[in-house]
């Protein structure tokens, strides 16, 4: 069963400024959902709200299961990757150790994911020393390694070269086929077109538009969404 979320009048205010909302929205994240919007639109805040790690100033957000169960079945890749001050191997093993997986099984999964992200030769390297792109790949693998039902990705390909981006996209499609719903932000319109099944377009902290990707990218949108897609500056 896929998880669904209900947002009711959700507002996030920081220092007397509304940075998100009000948003009322029913989210069925099955497949790949891409969140688009200019810098400062509230994409990161929106993802954190959905994951339940951002304090709401008003309104409610509930998943179709209990908060605890929802968090346990989700994973999140932050916009700037957080590396544990440990080796690559220990970083990958960490989420599995937390849920008490047997050692042999952990070792197996760690090897296989290190292979998938091209860090098999770097397993004993201290993670904080990796390059920016390598850190991003590691953070992604560390999120997917627990086979979550929903994964939030905040610009997972921001520092990646073309080839790595393609590899990651292939990984995401595969994870999605295996039953992981993906909700991600990106600034590459091309990537959005390649991956998206659904699109949510945020502007000034509000959901300005949302639709199935097929129609979002083809039929004419609101002026703002159209301008954003065309690469113009949205004021």
């Amino acid at each position, binding site marked *: 069963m896929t998880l669904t979320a209900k947002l009711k009048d959700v507002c996030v205010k920081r220092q007397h400024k509304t940075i998100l909302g009000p948003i009322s929205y029913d989210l069925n994240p099955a497949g790949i959902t891409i969140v688009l919007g200019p810098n400062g639109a509230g994409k990161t805040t929106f993802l954190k709200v959905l*994951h339940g*790690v951002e304090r709401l100033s008003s309104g409610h957000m509930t998943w179709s299961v209990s908060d*605890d169960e929802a*968090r*346990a079945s*989700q*994973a*999140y890749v*932050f916009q700037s990757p*957080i590396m*544990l*001050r*440990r080796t690559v191997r220990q970083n990958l093993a*960490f*989420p599995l150790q*937390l849920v008490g997986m047997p050692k042999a099984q952990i070792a197996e999964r760690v090897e296989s994911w290190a292979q998938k992200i091209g860090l098999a030769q770097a397993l004993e390297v*201290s993670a*904080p*020393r990796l390059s920016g792109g390598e850190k991003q790949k590691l953070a992604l693998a560390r999120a997917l390694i627990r086979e979550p039902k929903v994964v939030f990705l905040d610009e997972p390909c921001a520092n990646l070269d073309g080839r790595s981006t393609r590899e990651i996209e292939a990984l995401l499609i595969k994870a999605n086929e295996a039953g992981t719903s993906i909700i991600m932000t990106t600034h590459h319109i091309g990537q959005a077109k390649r991956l998206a099944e659904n699109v949510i377009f945020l502007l000034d902290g509000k959901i300005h538009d949302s639709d199935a990707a097929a129609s979002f990218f083809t039929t004419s949108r609101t002026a703002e969404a159209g301008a954003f897609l065309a690469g113009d500056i949205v004021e």
Partner: protein
Amino acid sequence: MNDIWAGLGSAFWLIVTGDPDLIEITLRSLQVSVSALVIASLIALPFGTWLAIRRFRFRRATIAALNALMGLPPVVVGLIVYLLLSRSGPFGVLGLLFTPTAMIIAQVIIITPLIASITHQAMRELWAEYHDLLISLNTSNWQRVRTLIYDGRRALLTASLAGFGRAIGEVGAIMIVGGNIDHATRVLTTAIALETGKGDFALALGLGFVLIALALIVNFAIHVLSRTEREGRW
């Protein structure tokens, strides 16, 4: 001036020949302070870490109290422990006064706030870095504390060493609660105080050299630790 030179000479001789008194006193000093260090660390490391990650009502007050306790004069700690352990005190029946155990208790009280405070500082930084990830991974409080302690282990070792340095060089409190009894509660610092008073500079200086050596070793260890920390070697 001659006295001092003669003292230095015989102090050196005491050390190289392994004078039994000097060795006994040194070992007792280590026994007391290492015990105090272990107990204080067991209390202070988890407590300091917990203080860094938990938001609760009296958190600021607790931190302020911790800093105040850190500035507590050891002599006063000695006095309080003395009163608690003396015959007429609440713990008098245990008969602990003038034993190494009493000295360990006093040192634990003196260094626990110091270790907890340094731990709190270091862990707050690490927690700021890890916060989002650990929350997102749905970790229990206990798992968070364990992760921070593991990844902050060098900083914690440094905190413990600082505590040890303070314990081994402390004289006021253990003089009061230990009583500086020969072959029972005499340690490096109290022996130096006594021998200096008696005018036996040879033994006093010999003991002083040992104490300085221990302090240097501790400081050197802290230095090496902070260097390997930066290089991320362990």
